[in-house]
C-alpha cells in the first residue's frame, strides 16, 4: 500500500514536470521555426536592408521594415501616453482609497475588460473613434491617434493589475510613518507610496507596452495600414504585427520569408521589453 502510494506520487510529479517543460518546449519550437523561416532572408537580403530599409514590396524584392518598426514604437508610446495615467490613477485609487465594496465591484470589471476579444475593440474603434477623428480633426481617421486610443484602453487591465499589486506590496508601516509625521493622505501617496512602488509600476508600463506591441487584430482595423512612416498623429500607419497578419494569407516564397523576418524582429523587441520588465521587478524584490 505504502509502496503504490509512493509510485503514484512519483508518477504525478513526473507528469507535472512534463507539463512544466512542455511550455518551454513550445517556446523553443516557436523560436526555431520563426528563426528557421526568417533568418535565411536576412542572410540573402542583408540585415541592414531589412531592418533599416524603407521600401516594403516583398513581391518585387524589397523587404524594408524600418517604417513598421518606427510605427510600432509610435503607437506603443501613444497607447502608454493615453493609458498609463488612467491606469495608474485607477490602481492608486483601488489600492489607497477604495473601500472593500468598491474593490469587489471594480476588480471583476477590470478582469472583464481584459477578457474582451481584441476584435471587439477594433470594431468599436472603426465604428466610433475613426469617424470621430475624421470629422473633427481631419485625415482619413485611420491613424496613430485612433490606434493609440484603442490600444490605450486595451492595456489598462495589464497596467492596473500589476501596479495595484506593487502598490499593495508597499508595507503599511511606510504609510503609518508618513501619516504620523503629519503628512496628508495625498502627500503620503505622492511622496512615499508611489516612489516605493516605482519599480513595479515601471514594470507594469513595460508589460503594457509588450501587450500593445503584440496586439494585431484591433490595430489592423483602425490603423489604415499604409506603409509610410507617419508624420502626424492623423496619418495612417502599419505595425509589425499587422504586416504579418495582413499579408500572410496570400504570401508565398520570399514574401512569406519576409513576413517571418518581421516576426523575428518582433520577437526580439518583445524579448527586450520582457527582459527590461523582469529586471525592474527583480530590482524591486532585491531593494
Amino acid at each position, binding site marked *: 500500500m505504502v509502496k503504490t502510494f509512493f509510485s503514484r506520487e512519483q508518477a504525478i510529479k513526473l507528469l507535472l514536470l512534463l507539463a512544466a517543460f512542455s511550455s518551454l518546449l513550445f517556446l523553443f519550437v516557436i523560436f526555431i521555426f520563426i528563426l528557421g523561416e526568417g533568418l535565411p532572408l536576412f542572410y540573402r537580403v542583408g540585415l541592414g536592408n531589412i531592418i533599416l530599409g524603407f521600401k516594403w514590396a516583398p513581391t518585387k524584392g524589397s523587404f524594408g521594415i524600418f517604417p513598421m518598426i518606427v510605427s510600432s514604437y509610435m503607437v506603443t508610446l501613444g497607447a502608454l501616453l493615453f493609458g498609463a495615467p488612467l491606469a495608474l490613477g485607477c490602481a492608486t485609487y483601488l489600492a489607497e482609497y477604495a473601500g472593500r465594496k468598491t474593490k469587489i465591484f471594480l476588480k471583476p470589471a477590470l478582469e472583464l475588460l481584459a477578457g474582451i476579444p481584441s476584435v471587439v475593440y477594433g470594431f468599436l474603434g472603426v465604428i466610433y473613434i475613426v469617424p470621430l477623428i475624421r470629422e473633427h480633426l481631419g*485625415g482619413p481617421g485611420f491613424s496613430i491617434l485612433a490606434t493609440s486610443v484603442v490600444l490605450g484602453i486595451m492595456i489598462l487591465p495589464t497596467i492596473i493589475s500589476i501596479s495595484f499589486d506593487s502598490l499593495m506590496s508597499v508595507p503599511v508601516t511606510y504609510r503609518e510613518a508618513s501619516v504620523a509625521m503629519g503628512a496628508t493622505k495625498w502627500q503620503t501617496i505622492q511622496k512615499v507610496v508611489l516612489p516605493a512602488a516605482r519599480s513595479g509600476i515601471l514594470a507594469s508600463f513595460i508589460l503594457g507596452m509588450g501587450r500593445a506591441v503584440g496586439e494585431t487584430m484591433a490595430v489592423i482595423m483602425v490603423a489604415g*495600414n499604409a*506603409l509610410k512612416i507617419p508624420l502626424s498623429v492623423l496619418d495612417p500607419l502599419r505595425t509589425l504585427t499587422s504586416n504579418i497578419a*495582413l*499579408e500572410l*494569407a496570400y*504570401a508565398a516564397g520570399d*514574401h512569406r520569408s519576409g513576413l517571418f523576418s518581421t516576426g523575428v524582429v518582433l520577437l526580439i523587441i518583445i524579448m527586450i521589453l520582457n527582459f527590461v520588465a523582469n529586471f525592474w521587478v527583480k530590482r524591486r524584490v532585491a531593494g
Partner: protein
Amino acid sequence: MNGKLATRLALLLLIVIVFLGSLGLHRSGASRKDTITLAGSTSVMPFSEKLAEYFMVGNPKCAVDVQGGGSSAGVQAAMNKTVQIGMSSRKLRDDEKILKEIPICYDGISIIVHPGNPVRNITEDQVRQIYNGEIRNWKQLGWIDRAIDAVTREEGSGTRGAFEELVMKKEYIDDRIMVQDSNGSVKEVVATDPYAIGYVSLGMVDAKVKTLTIGGVAPTVTNIRQNRYHMVRPFLYLTLGDPQGTTKAFIDFVLSRDGQNILRREGLVPVRG
C-alpha cells in the same frame, strides 16, 4: 484525493478518445460522398460557393468544399494536389504554367467612392496618379479641397495583382495609400469615409458605394463584353492535369449554360453564352 484525481484523469482520457473517435467518424462519413475541394482567391470564393450549392442540388452524391486563402495559395494548393481545383483571380506566372487554366468568367475591377461624392468620372491615368501619389487632393479631380483617402489591397492579393497589371503598369503604389485586406473591408472603408476611393471586384459592388465611370465607360457586363471597359481580369480554375470524375463534372457544370447564368446574375461576365 488521489483516487479523485485518477478518476478525473480517466474522464479526461475518455473525452479525448471520444473526441478523436468522432473525428474519425466524421472522416469516414464524408468519404461516402465524392468530395472535391476548391481553394484560392477570395474574389472567386463566394461565386464558387454559389456554384457548388447549385451543383450539389443536382448531384446529391457529390460534396464540393470551397475554401479561401488567396490566389497564390490556390495555385500552391493545386500544384501540390492538396485540392482538386485551385482558384485564381490573376493570370499565372511562367513557373506556374504547368497547371491547366480554365477561365470560368471575367470580372471587372471597379473604382468606387462614397455615394455622397459628386465626382462621376475619372480617367485611367488619373486612377494611376492617385495610386502612385501624384494626385492627392479631390480639388485636382474637380471637387473640394480635401485630401483623397485612397485605399488599396495588401501585397499578394489577386485583386491588387490585377489592378497593378491593368492600371499601374510598371509604377509602384505609393506608401501613403491605406491598405485593407479584403474586398469587403475596402468597400466598408469607402462606404463610411466620404473622401475615400478604392477598387473592388465588380461583383462586390452594391448600393453602399458608387462606381466611377472610367473615361466615360461604366463597368457593366455589356461594356466588358464589347471590350470597352478595360479593367478586366479572368477568374480561373486551375487543375493539375486534365480534370476527371467529380472534378470534371463540377467544371462542366460551371461552364454549362446554367452555371454561366448563375455567374451572370452575380454581376460577372460569362465566358460563353
